[in-house]
């Protein structure tokens, strides 16, 4: 192959050497000239010489080639594939060791022979298409074929057959490589399967994601799973509580009937029941092969099912639901298919559970949202220690800022009203630093400046190390509640202020509400009254109240008068307005009654009625008297005439009797007339002093000696314009009554005195007018008049005397006479002690000018002293207050002793004088005085009483009361006594 350098040169070694050098130089030069791109030179003698450098290169590449060949051979034998080369005649040129191993022959037995020479035909056929590749020159690449291995196992091979060409591109043979791709194939398949499975599960997820309704989810799942596995049917069923009865709600079917309906699991074989009940997947490939006819197979046949995969849902030990795929023919379920059904069913249950939970969550969230909005309730958090505040939309709304506002702490606190800022700051700090929770009601000013009330609740949240990392809480707008609370408080105050008794009772008449007005009116405190039966407490007349209750129950309201008894025994007349209170459903719940005390009004009404009655009786009597006078006139006139005609003594005697009787009748008529309205007595100036002296004489002369008579008349007693005879009669009538009241013994005192009545007094007594009066007083120490009778003593024909002894006209005549003189009468009586009649008659004074008016100017004035006035009569209280205030005093009022004590306890230091009535319900004067004396032994006290002073002075003195005003008192009296009292008190203090 190689050319030797020229050897024809025969010169000396040196020459040879020179020539060789020259040759080398020449070659080098040639190379240089050709840019190193020349390999050989053609000698003119027809020899070709390979240039030295090219030879070197060639040799190196041959060595490399050899090495490459060796490497390739090693590779050839090592590659885990069968490789063979064939020539164009389909004979094996070369095979590698793998071929020999897999065919069980030696390499040298194979090489140089054709497949049909060495292999059985079936095996040789495998090599048949080698020739085709050789002939067509087109490679066959990546052919994957399935073969069965030596033990019949699955064997996958990939075959690549490529023709190879000589340098001219002519096909000279074939190289084929076969390698075992069974493992790769299996990996690929399982990859493909899992990819498919994942894609299916993904598609399933996508399809069910938008669905919220569990039933709809099941429909979609059944269809998709059924289609994916190409099954005849996919069904799901709910299992009843017994664990065996079940209902197929829906199924997907592919060319087979739907099985929607009710079934019994036990019909499908014992294995079916036990497998499913234990939560296992039931896999049946052929029902007829796996079940006995009477243990399920018949049932499966009846529903046309041959193969099944059924997955149960077992929860809390009970079979709840199932999902199954059916095949109408036997089917060899692949493990992947069973796994897929299990996976899908599991996902399906989970999804349904999640959906249900989501739905619940959504609902509760919606509810919460509605509740938050309705209740104006929001939440907030403050992260620590950075202090980052987060407000919920509702909290922002309450502050009047847009949702998402994130204020800093200072801004957040700045929203509170000034007085609330410090409270919330301290509460927040205590919570953030010490973990103290808070719950506060605070005033807030919203962004638009309107004030609202909020409730802020906060608590600390700690991390694992116990550090407070957050303060969080709730925030609620409670303005409405605050306003209604305020309204309720105001209303409650109004109810308590009302003078009426406001009482609520249930339908059994147990008291449930008792206003302050009721406490004042009835004397029972709320605690005492609550829960008691109204009728028992106040002694309500049963018949009357029943009638009222019927009205309330039937028409819902009633209005009328009822008598009730207060705690102190006073019988009160009440104007009651009852109303039914109904609950929100309209059912009767309780009765509300508003009772107005009209006792006083009733009394006045009665008095008015009595006056009217008396007036009509007067008119009647006047008319009768007039007629009687007309009858008696002629009788008396005729008697004179008859006396002249009938002079015999017998006749004279008879006439005398007739005359006496007629005159007495005329006298009686006059008396009747003088009681009636029509009396027109003579009006002359009458000296009462003389009148009293006359009466004293008569009484002393005619009354029994056991009655001691005293008179007391001042010399400067004014006079009265009136009828002396009538006034005489008045005094006489009263003295006779006094005598009759003292059958065994007693004192009769007749006195008279001047009295100037002022505006103050007049205001307290409607019958009195300001001006000068004379008071005539007839006082006895007799039996007294019972309380029940005192109202009636002035009624005509009312008498307590035995029949025939009194006419019942005495006092009514007296009253008529006094009234006709412009006066009035007051009676004070105490059974067993005595009775005082006071006759007030307008007097004539020497000076014509109004005395009272002048005197008012001179009356002593106060100097801002605080006077506590106690009287149960509101009119007396108010007139007294007006008077005292007009004269420079300050006044506080109490309606009874208890109230007085309460007021004294509050303002005792200020009170200068106590003015108290002695006769009061609840806590009377003496009791009040005793209590107050204990509080302040020095307290100046003035006692007021309608009873004669004499009887009580001793008692007052024992109480330490030195000052006394008789009731009714005039402003003058009151002011003078008050001045005296104050002066004495000052002296006492000085001492």
């Amino acid at each position: 192959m190689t050319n030797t350098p020229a050897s024809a040169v025969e010169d000396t070694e040196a020459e040879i050497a020179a020539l060789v050098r020259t040759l080398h130089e020449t070659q080098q030069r040639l190379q240089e000239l050709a840019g190193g791109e020349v390999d050989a030179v053609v000698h003119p003698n027809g020899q070709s010489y390979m240039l030295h450098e090219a030879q070197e290169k060639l040799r190196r590449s041959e060595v490399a080639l050899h090495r490459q060949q060796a490497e390739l051979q090693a590779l050839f034998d090592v590659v885990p594939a069968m490789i063979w080369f064939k020539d164009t005649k389909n004979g094996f040129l070369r095979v590698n060791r793998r071929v020999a191993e897999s065919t069980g022959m030696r390499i040298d037995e194979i090489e140089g022979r054709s497949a049909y020479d060495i292999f059985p035909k079936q095996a040789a056929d495998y090599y048949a298409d080698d020739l085709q590749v050789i002939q067509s020159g087109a490679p066959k690449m990546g052919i994957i074929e399935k073969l069965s291995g030596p033990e019949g196992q699955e064997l996958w091979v990939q075959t690549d057959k490529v023709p190879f060409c000589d340098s001219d591109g002519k096909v000279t043979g074939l190289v084929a490589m076969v390698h075992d791709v069974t493992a790769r194939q299996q990996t690929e398949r399982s990859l493909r399967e899992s990819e498919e499975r994942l894609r299916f599960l993904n598609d399933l997820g996508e399809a069910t994601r938008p669905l919220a309704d569990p039933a709809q989810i099941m429909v979609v799942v059944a269809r998709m799973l059924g289609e994916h596995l190409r099954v005849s049917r996919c069904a799901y069923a709910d299992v009843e509580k017994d664990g065996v009865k079940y209902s197929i709600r829906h199924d997907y079917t592919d060319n087979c009937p739907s099985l929607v309906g009710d079934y019994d699991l036990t019909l499908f074989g014992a294995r079916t029941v036990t497998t499913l009940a234990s939560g296992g997947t039931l896999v049946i490939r052929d029902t007829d092969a796996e079940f006995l006819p009477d243990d399920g197979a018949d049932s499966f046949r009846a529903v046309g099912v041959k193969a099944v995969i059924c997955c149960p849902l077992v929860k809390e030990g009970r079979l709840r639901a199932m999902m199954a795929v059916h095949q109408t023919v036997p089917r060899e379920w692949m493990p992947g298919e069973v796994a897929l059904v299990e996976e899908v069913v599991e996902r399906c249950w989970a999804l349904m559970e999640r959906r249900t939970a989501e739905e619940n969550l959504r609902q509760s969230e919606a509810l919460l949202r509605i509740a938050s909005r309705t209740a104006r309730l929001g939440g907030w958090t403050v992260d620590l220690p950075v202090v980052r505040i987060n407000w919920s939309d509702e909290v922002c709304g309450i502050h009047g800022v847009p949702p998402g506002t994130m204020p800093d702490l200072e801004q957040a606190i700045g929203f509170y009203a000034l007085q609330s800022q410090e409270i919330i700051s301290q509460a927040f700090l205590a919570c953030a630093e010490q973990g103290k929770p808070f719950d506060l009601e605070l005033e807030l000013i919203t962004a638009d400046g309107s004030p609202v009330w909020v409730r802020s609740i906060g608590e600390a949240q700690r991390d694992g190390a116990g550090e407070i990392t957050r303060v969080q809480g709730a925030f609620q707008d409670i303005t409405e509640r605050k306003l209604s609370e305020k309204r309720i408080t105001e209303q409650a105050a109004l109810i308590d202020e009302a003078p009426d008794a406001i009482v609520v009772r249930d339908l059994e008449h147990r008291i449930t509400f008792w206003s302050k007005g009721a406490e004042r009116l009835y004397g029972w405190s709320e605690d005492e009254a609550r829960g008691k039966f109204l009728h028992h407490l106040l002694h309500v007349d049963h018949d009357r109240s029943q009638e009222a209750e019927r009205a309330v129950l039937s028409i819902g309201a009633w209005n009328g008068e009822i008598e009730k008894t207060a705690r102190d025994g006073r019988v009160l007349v009440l104007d009651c307005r009852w109303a039914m209170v109904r609950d929100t459903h309209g059912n009767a719940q309780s009765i509300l009654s508003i009772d107005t005390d009209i006792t006083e009004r009733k009394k006045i009404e009665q008095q008015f009625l009595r006056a009217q009655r008396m007036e009509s009786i007067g008119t009647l009597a006047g008319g009768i008297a007039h007629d009687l006078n007309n009858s008696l006139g002629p009788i008396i006139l005729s008697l004179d005439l008859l006396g002249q005609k009938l002079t015999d003594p017998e006749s004279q005697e008879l006439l005398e009797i007739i005359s006496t009787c007629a005159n007495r009748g005329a006298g009686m008529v006059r008396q009747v007339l003088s009681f009636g309205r029509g009396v027109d007595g003579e009006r002359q100036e009458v000296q009462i002093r003389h009148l009293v002296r006359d009466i004293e004489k008569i009484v002393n002369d005619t009354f029994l000696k056991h009655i001691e008579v005293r008179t007391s008349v001042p010399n400067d007693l004014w006079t009265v314009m009136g009828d002396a005879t009538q006034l005489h009669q008045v005094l006489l009538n009263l003295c006779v009554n006094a005598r009759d009241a003292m059958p065994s013994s007693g004192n009769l005192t007749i006195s008279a005195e001047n009295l100037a009545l002022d505006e103050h007094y007049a205001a307290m007594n409607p019958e009195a007018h300001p001006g000068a009066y004379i008071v005539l007083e007839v006082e006895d120490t007799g039996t007294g008049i019972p309380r029940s009778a005192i109202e009636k003593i002035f009624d005509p024909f009312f008498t307590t005397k035995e029949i025939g002894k009194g006419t019942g006209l005495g006092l009514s005549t007296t009253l008529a006479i006094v009234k006709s003189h412009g006066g009035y009468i007051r009676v004070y009586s105490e059974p067993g002690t005595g009775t005082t009649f006071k006759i007030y008659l307008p007097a004539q004074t020497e000076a014509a000018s109004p005395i009272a008016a002048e005197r008012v100017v001179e009356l002593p004035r106060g100097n801002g002293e605080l006077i506590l006035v106690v009287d149960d009569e509101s009119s007396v209280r108010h007139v007294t207050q007006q008077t005292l205030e007009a004269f420079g005093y300050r006044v506080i009022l109490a309606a009874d002793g208890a109230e007085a004590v309460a007021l004294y306890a509050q303002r005792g230091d200020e009170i200068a004088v106590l003015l108290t009535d002695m006769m009061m319900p609840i806590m009377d004067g003496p009791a009040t005085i005793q209590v107050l004396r204990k509080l302040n032994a020095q307290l100046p006290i003035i006692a007021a009483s309608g009873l004669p002073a004499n009887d009580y002075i001793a008692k007052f003195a024992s109480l330490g009361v030195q000052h006394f005003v008789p009731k009714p008192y005039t402003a003058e009296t009151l002011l003078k006594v008050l001045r005296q009292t104050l002066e004495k008190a000052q002296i006492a203090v000085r001492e």
Partner: protein
Amino acid sequence: MSIPAHFKFRLYVAGDGPNSTLAKTNLAAICLEHLADRHEIEIVDVLREPQRALADLVMLTPHLVKLSPGPIRKITGTLSQREVVLQALGLPC
């Protein structure tokens, strides 16, 4: 339009000499790229047929002769300088 000319080459090489092999490869590449289906290459190995080299006055290998289309062009070397070769052959670069 004229029908593209058919190229006839004769490449003188010295066996598997490296430059000769390079020349063969380069020529094949140029033909594939510019003269697909319209070329013909005759390879003359001067080691085997030195007389033909002499006859054609080829003194060095590798040596390319463009026989047609005319005029005849002769290039000695590995034909690695493609632009020069293309120019010499009258082909567009």
